[in-house]
């Protein structure tokens, strides 16, 4: 993990891997350009940091096997969809769905540091993850891509292979859920 204070540069969609002569080169390019994206996505989809490397490896392993089927220009879509599945599998082993209720949020409120302490970004991130943890994965995916990866809704629609309307409604619901939880935190702080 890097402790840089500057936000890391994001890989923009137009930087997507170009067609290459050999699968090895293509995989390498995919890895070079999308590694950070995949790793970050897995983290924000709930994969603990300790497991993030392994989960990332798993995503690229799937990609390497399915390389011939990944359309040029659709690499991120494929990788994110794969990351979503792997995050889901990983999380299934860690937490039960039942934790995603108000009880979890109450627990969160109890343990959340005050605004001053939030300056500690590492703790802030832990709180962020726990808020995200209270979201359904499908809302969470849209939320992460929009709010953190800064994709446009159109890009998200392409990435998740969803109708634009669905993206918009999921984003709206996700933002409402996020804001509601944050409001509870603020009330408790």
């Amino acid at each position: 993990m890097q402790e840089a204070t500057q936000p890391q540069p994001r890989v923009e969609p137009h930087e997507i891997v170009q067609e290459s002569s050999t699968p090895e080169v293509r995989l390498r390019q995919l890895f070079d350009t999308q590694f950070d994206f995949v790793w970050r996505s897995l983290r924000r989809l709930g994969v603990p940091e300790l497991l993030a490397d392994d989960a990332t490896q798993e995503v690229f392993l799937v990609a390497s096997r399915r390389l011939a089927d990944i359309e040029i220009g659709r690499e991120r879509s494929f990788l994110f969809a794969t990351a979503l599945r792997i995050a889901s599998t990983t999380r299934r082993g860690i937490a039960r769905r039942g934790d995603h209720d108000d009880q979890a949020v109450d627990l969160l409120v109890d343990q959340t540091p005050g605004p001053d302490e939030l300056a500690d970004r590492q703790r802030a991130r832990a709180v962020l993850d726990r808020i995200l943890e209270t979201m359904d994965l499908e809302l969470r995916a849209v939320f992460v891509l929009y709010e953190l990866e800064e994709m446009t809704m159109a890009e998200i629609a392409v990435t998740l292979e969803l109708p634009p309307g669905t993206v918009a409604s999921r984003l709206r619901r996700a933002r409402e859920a996020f804001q509601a939880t944050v409001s509870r935190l603020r009330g408790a702080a």
Partner: protein
Amino acid sequence: MSSPRRLKDEDGIGATLLRSAADDGPGASSRRAVAAALGLAAIAHGTTTAAAAASTAPAATAPVAGTTATVTAATTAPAAVIASKAGISIAAKLIVGLTLATGVGVGVAVQANREPARSAAVVLPAEAVHRADTAPPARVAVTAPTVAADPVPTVPVPTVPTVPVPTVPLPMEPVVPAVRVGSEPHAQRTTAPTTTAPTTTAPTTTAPTTTVEPSTGAGARVEEAVPTTPSLADEVAVLDAALVALRDHHTASALRLLDQYDRRFPAGTLASEAAVARIEALVAAGNRDRARALATKFLAAHGTSPLAQRVRTLTEP
């Protein structure tokens, strides 16, 4: 579709929280480790993929005394492929592998008998789904139970090139009942990505060079991060990873994984198999004295085990 302003550009706690995510990224060591595990390091250094492939191939020049270990290396890989093609759980693959390794079919029977009353119907939901997702031939017969949230890419299913079928009869049918899943209602399935990954990377898949080397310490980290009731599936995952490491001549990794196995499952169902794997790993590592000491201990306790003959063969002078 109108795009709302991003929350992190606003004020307040929510924005602070969201901005904190910017710090979180993989370090250079993560990138290196994963690249190495994927076999991409070789490409980066201009080495041809043949070199990387050679490391995964069950080489006949295994640095293992005796011939049996080579047999193991040569047979377990295709068996894993076949098992994964058939959608059989990793447990089945392991036991197939072990059976081949021991060269005795009774290994399976022993496993099956050890857990006679266990439910045979449950086939590790998480792993089954996982396998359906990742195994190249996605037409496996596994019915993915409930993964509503997972969007399945509409990518066409690749056809897998011919896989060399080992002539050894694969005792798949009697294998599945040995899986102990239904016994613990609260048992959480912990499908650690890495521990399962290696088995899918037999040298015959379409992947260019997917050497998964389970030495990234992943197993150990899984153990610390996911404290759950150990189940047979967990045992299998760790032991399977160790066997794959052994097969690929990553002896140190194999020993680490076996250490992990012993720590997590002190009274494990597959403890004997783990013990034999350790002896084999020690032989491979050139630590024959330690191997012989363990072999003596093993034979004293399990002299009549189907694994005993293998232990004797391994540690023959």
